[in-house]
């Protein structure tokens, strides 16, 4: 078995290597174009390796970084705020539902569960948030509406349930209040599930562009991803003007093809460097909620 499997393992490694190369090709392309010379692109198109190494796209972006920096600030603020708040509130709600000791918990669970089955949809939500609550064009639109996700509450509850009931009993005997048991016993013991959810929530917020698309007109409140999407469209616009001879001077000076890709790198780069390190939590967390649920 052992000798025979050596060939199999080598082939498997080879297959995986090919697969991985295919998977990261889009990343390589993005990086390569961002470091290319605009003239080379115009001549030969995009390449997986820059013909001439060139930083002008990045220097163009960092010459006037206020817009990007601002979007970074906005995105970082609401991502962190939303993650912290939603984890706190979700676990706060998961706690009473766990350990089966509160009357009416089945009703509350169903109250939560029903929202996973049926929703009012995009339009009524839009009207509620803009016409009645006036959350559009404020930073709160990113934070408040999505604070509670029933799915996450159930995941945390499942985890709380797996903690030994004796912890609860002995805390009660020691005279701890429910909130204190939640904060000092249940929460510290639930780090694995909390870390996973924190990561997922943060990632979802960081990658959010829909909210800006729907609710934000004020460019100072654009999220990073939405800004990126806008730029993809705006540079195209500039190019069209250039081609029809309307925008004569400036448009030609923008190394638009390379700047576009460099923008994507500037936006995606930090997240791409950071998130793979949390990969093991993802793998763990995916199975934490599902095995027992």
């Amino acid at each position: 078995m052992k000798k025979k499997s050596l060939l199999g393992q080598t082939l498997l490694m080879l297959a995986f290597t090919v697969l991985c190369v295919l998977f990261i090709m889009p990343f390589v392309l993005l990086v390569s174009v961002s470091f290319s010379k605009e003239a080379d692109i115009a001549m030969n198109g995009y390449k997986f390796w820059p013909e001439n190494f060139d930083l002008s796209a990045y220097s163009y972006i960092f010459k006037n970084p206020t817009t990007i920096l601002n979007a970074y600030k906005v995105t970082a603020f609401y991502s962190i705020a939303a993650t912290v708040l939603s984890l706190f509130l979700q676990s706060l709600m998961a706690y009473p539902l766990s350990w089966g000791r509160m009357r009416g918990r089945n009703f509350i669970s169903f109250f939560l569960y029903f929202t996973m089955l049926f929703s009012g949809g995009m339009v009524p939500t839009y009207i509620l948030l803009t016409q009645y609550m006036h959350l559009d064009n404020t930073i709160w639109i990113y934070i408040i509406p999505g604070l509670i996700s029933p799915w996450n509450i159930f995941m945390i509850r499942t985890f709380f349930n797996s903690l030994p009931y004796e912890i609860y009993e002995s805390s009660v005997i020691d005279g701890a209040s429910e909130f204190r048991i939640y904060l000092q016993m249940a929460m510290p013991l639930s780090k694995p599930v909390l870390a996973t959810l924190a990561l997922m929530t943060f990632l979802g917020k960081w990658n959010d562009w829909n909210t800006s698309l729907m609710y934000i007109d004020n460019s100072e409140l654009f999220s990073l991803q939405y800004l990126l999407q806008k730029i993809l469209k705006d540079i195209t616009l500039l190019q069209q003007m250039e081609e029809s001879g309307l925008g004569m001077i400036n448009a030609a000076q923008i190394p638009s093809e390379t700047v576009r890709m460099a923008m994507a790198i500037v936006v995606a780069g930090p997240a791409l460097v950071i998130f793979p390190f949390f990969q093991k939590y993802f793998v763990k967390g995916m199975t934490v909620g599902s095995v027992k649920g």
Partner: protein
Amino acid sequence: MKLAKDAKDLRMHKRRGPTKREWSLYAMCAVPVLLVLVFNYLPMYGLIIAFKNYKYSLGIFGSEWVGFRNFEFFVTSSDFIRLVRNTVGLNAIFIVFGIVCAVILSIMLYELKSRLATKIFQTTLLTPHFLSWVIVSYMLYGFLHPQYGILNGFMENTLHIQPLDWYATPSVWPFILTIASIWKHVAMDSILYYAALMGIDSSLIEAARIDGAGKFKIYRYIILPELVSLITILTIMKIGNIFRADFGLFYQLPRDIGILYPTTDVIDTYIFRTMRVIGDMGMSSAVGFLQSLVGFVLVVATNYVSKKVSDTSLF
């Protein structure tokens, strides 16, 4: 043990009101419940917009009732067939290919003996999952750009065939969207199958091997049966959501280009466009209502089926 104790506790308090402890538990629920009530249940009430000719100036209550006109208009329009076909058709393709690829990947990972290699490959394949669809649309643009794109360059210079204007050719988009969807999700999807494979009792496989079972037989009689129930439940769950499309995938990758609508326009992008671009709130709401309703029925039905089939269900 635990349950019996709880039941006794409950009986003891049955006649009295909530205990002091219960009050503090209710208090902990208060804010989250309020948030769900406002942001999840209030919009459901707003569904009456679907039966109205909504005007911003008149508000929900002031707008004129039109009965089922919005629904009739949508169901009889030419958009209806196209949207249902694209949404259900493409989702079905994603489900089938997504599951096949995820299962194959998980088996490949399972067969890999080196822990380090498993980690490296898994991390690499997971990377697309961390990207937003906006970034993916940039990458795709790099491949499909009519003038500079990698694919057209390859077709022209290496294969010497006529390059294609990808963003003006609807027929290729089902393939592109499927590849993009699998590329982004396959590693994440495979994790569940991988976990199931790792959970298989290794002594079972060892015993089979001693009894002379080859690799094929071990897969046929031990490993695949373990996966079948998981595949069944995940498929059923996905079928329950077959009328819901991934808005980001369908909005960002085809870049909202009108020529591509015949194969890329799905219910979710249509709702968005009718609402934000055309501004027909009643109509858009009606489509959303239909989608929610059909989705609800499907989820409940598929859940019932999965209960029958595999004894596993969501509720």
